[in-house]
């Protein structure tokens, strides 16, 4: 997909003015956020499970090469063909090669963020293949020529009215006056149209939520059942996944699955959790004749000996974005690349470079909600701060911003000077503003006063007030 992370600031301006988007996003607090809260309340062990989940992933990452090799051995013994892809280009070409060899014309797809990351659809289409997304949200996004704006709810930026209009525009073979104002009518129409695709498809591509070393399996988690039809009806099943998805055993997977659905949609468990191991067996009545797994690195291994290793624990539940005030205000597309929200702010600079994505770790209020809900306890704000530190250390950023930060850090490390400077500053502002009560504009603070007034200080700094308060309080 096109990267527009560098244009984050103008993306944000457009998003804030987009009334349809704002209407669509307004459902988040009562939707996914409230549902997660309710699910958590129903499971007293939820918080303790987060610690266990973090430890499982930390253990796995410390032995990552070994678990991947063990998984590969088991998968291969069950008849899987395992392909390793150092880069996105390698992964794209491997999948295209599998399709060529199968003489494929029609490819169906279940939801896969890794396939977005490697821009798979465009690559396959350029080779003359028809590629159809079958997750309803992904299908909605595909017929609009857009990309997902959320990692588990790809069409969360769309209103029902927009979807109805898209269906009328896209499905012109159906009666013009058919009713489509209820979600159930939209879903039925999509079901009929995609049924045909499932049945005709030559290759079915899915992602994987986990790989299991003990059994050589890949796991997908869905609610619609589209992933299962995708991988069962085509003669070739291709799993597109990445090195960070492996876990050692079924017991490890059980713990992570308990966290995943609750954190993602607030369900106790997703409707379908499917373990796939190898292609159909000789005695089987159905299932794919070939089963391929493409395992992508694309910059992940390079994080293993950095502070960003922790981000490889991510199980892609989406809770961090659902709870993020920045995501809630601007939606996912503003982030300008595959992974939006706090996880994107930490992961995208690692995968596409800090040059391109430097705005993202700065787009945070550091309110800490993402870290407090992350089932894998990833310290997302701390890692964003680390990117900011690296950005500053590399000499990037505007000259004004850098000098301001330098001046600030000089002052912040000299408390006496700091207190003197703030006392002077506050006293001056107070004297200037006392009669007006607030400033409409201020030199050097245009970023603030363009959008709201700055209340005039009352005359003393917080430190002064605090000192007086302490003196006044009897010990």
């Amino acid at each position, binding site marked *: 997909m096109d990267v527009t992370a560098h244009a984050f600031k103008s993306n944000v301006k457009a998003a804030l003015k987009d009334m349809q988007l704002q209407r669509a996003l307004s459902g988040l607090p009562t939707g996914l956020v409230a549902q997660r809260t309710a699910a958590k309340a129903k499971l007293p062990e939820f918080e303790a499970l987060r610690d266990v989940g973090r430890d499982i992933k930390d253990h796995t990452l410390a032995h990552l090469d070994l678990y991947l*090799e063990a998984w590969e051995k088991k998968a291969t013994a069950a008849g899987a063909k395992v392909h390793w892809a150092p880069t996105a280009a390698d992964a794209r070409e491997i999948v295209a090669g599998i399709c060529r060899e199968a003489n494929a014309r029609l490819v169906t797809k279940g939801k896969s963020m890794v396939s977005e990351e490697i821009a798979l659809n465009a690559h396959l289409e350029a080779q003359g293949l028809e590629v159809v997304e079958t997750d309803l949200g992904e299908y909605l996004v595909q017929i609009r020529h857009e990309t997902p704006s959320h990692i588990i709810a790809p069409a969360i930026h769309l209103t029902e009215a927009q979807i109805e209009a898209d269906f009328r525009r896209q499905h012109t073979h159906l009666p013009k006056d058919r009713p489509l104002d209820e979600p159930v009518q939209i*879903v039925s129409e999509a079901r009929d149209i995609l049924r045909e695709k499932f049945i005709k498809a030559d290759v079915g591509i899915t992602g994987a939520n986990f790989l299991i070393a003990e059994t050589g399996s890949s796991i997908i988690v869905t*609610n619609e059942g589209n992933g*299962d039809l995708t991988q069962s009806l085509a003669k070739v099943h291709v799993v597109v996944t990445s090195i960070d998805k492996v876990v*050692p055993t079924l017991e490890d997977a059980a713990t992570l699955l308990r966290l995943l659905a609750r954190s993602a949609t607030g369900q106790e468990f997703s409707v*379908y959790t499917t373990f796939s191991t190898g292609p159909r067996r000789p005695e089987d009545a159905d299932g794919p004749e070939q089963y391929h797994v493409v395992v992508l690195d694309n910059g992940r*291994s390079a994080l293993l000996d950095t502070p960003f290793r922790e981000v490889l624990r991510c199980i892609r539940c989406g809770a961090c974005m659902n709870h993020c005030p920045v995501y809630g205000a601007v939606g996912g597309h503003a982030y300008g690349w595959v992974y939006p929200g706090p996880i994107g702010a930490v992961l995208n600079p690692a995968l596409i470079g800090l040059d391109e994505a430097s705005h993202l770790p700065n787009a945070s209020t550091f309110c800490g909600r993402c870290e407090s809900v992350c089932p894998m306890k990833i310290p997302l704000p701390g890692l964003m701060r680390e990117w900011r530190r690296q950005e500053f250390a590399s000499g990037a950023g505007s000259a004004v911003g850098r000098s301001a930060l330098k001046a600030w850090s000089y002052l912040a490390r000299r408390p006496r000077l700091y207190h003197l400077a703030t006392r002077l500053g506050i006293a001056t502002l107070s004297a200037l503003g006392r009669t007006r009560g607030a400033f409409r504009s201020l030199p050097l603070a245009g970023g603030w006063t363009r959008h709201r007034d700055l209340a005039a200080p009352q005359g003393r700094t917080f430190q002064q007030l605090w000192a007086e308060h302490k003196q006044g309080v009897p010990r």
Partner: protein
Amino acid sequence: MSDSAAALRRDKVLGAIRSRLGQSDGRSRTAASRIAGQAPHLVPERSRRDAAGLKELFATQLRAGNATVVAVASEADLPAAVAAYLRGQNLPLAMRAGNDTWLRAIDWSREPALSIAEGPAVPDDEVGLTHAVAAVAETGTLVLASGPANPVTVTFLPETSIIVVRAADLVGPYEAAFDLIRQRYGRGTMPRTLNLVSGPSRTADVGGRLVTGAHGPRRLCVMVVG
């Protein structure tokens, strides 16, 4: 792409991981012993119950996910229960099923109007009948193993899915169900697909509103026998 290119790519990915992690002693042993047997981690209290309690939890959880749950006293009563459900939903009495030995041993002729076609599902099939190897009370989840006995298309293609499970195969947490699978297939071995099913298919992709019946079955009826 050639095999040697594939081998190079493999070395590149695994080599990059190894060089970043360093190779301390004992890593291989640690990983191998975990794969050979990992005790369950924290298992939620809610599934520690007696058989009656598990049955109740299982049904409550499934119903919360919009499934129908029917208690059937014995195998002999299953044909009547299935026929009654289908009639109640105004559905045809023709079903699709695999060649599951247990389902086959049931005397379906007690309900002469019922018919079962054996084999993988085709798009016109309206009702699928499958037999779950286990059921998990914790979240109201059925565990289906694919194979000639229960082809995976029978679980996903028809609009109505009837899944039968024996009360004796009902366990508390997922870990206990995985142990049953290990007993049946051997440790480290799995059927082509193991499907964990917790309700009829659903989506919330249109305006965040929940709709039951996306691509998989619109209706799920679970019959607990015994």
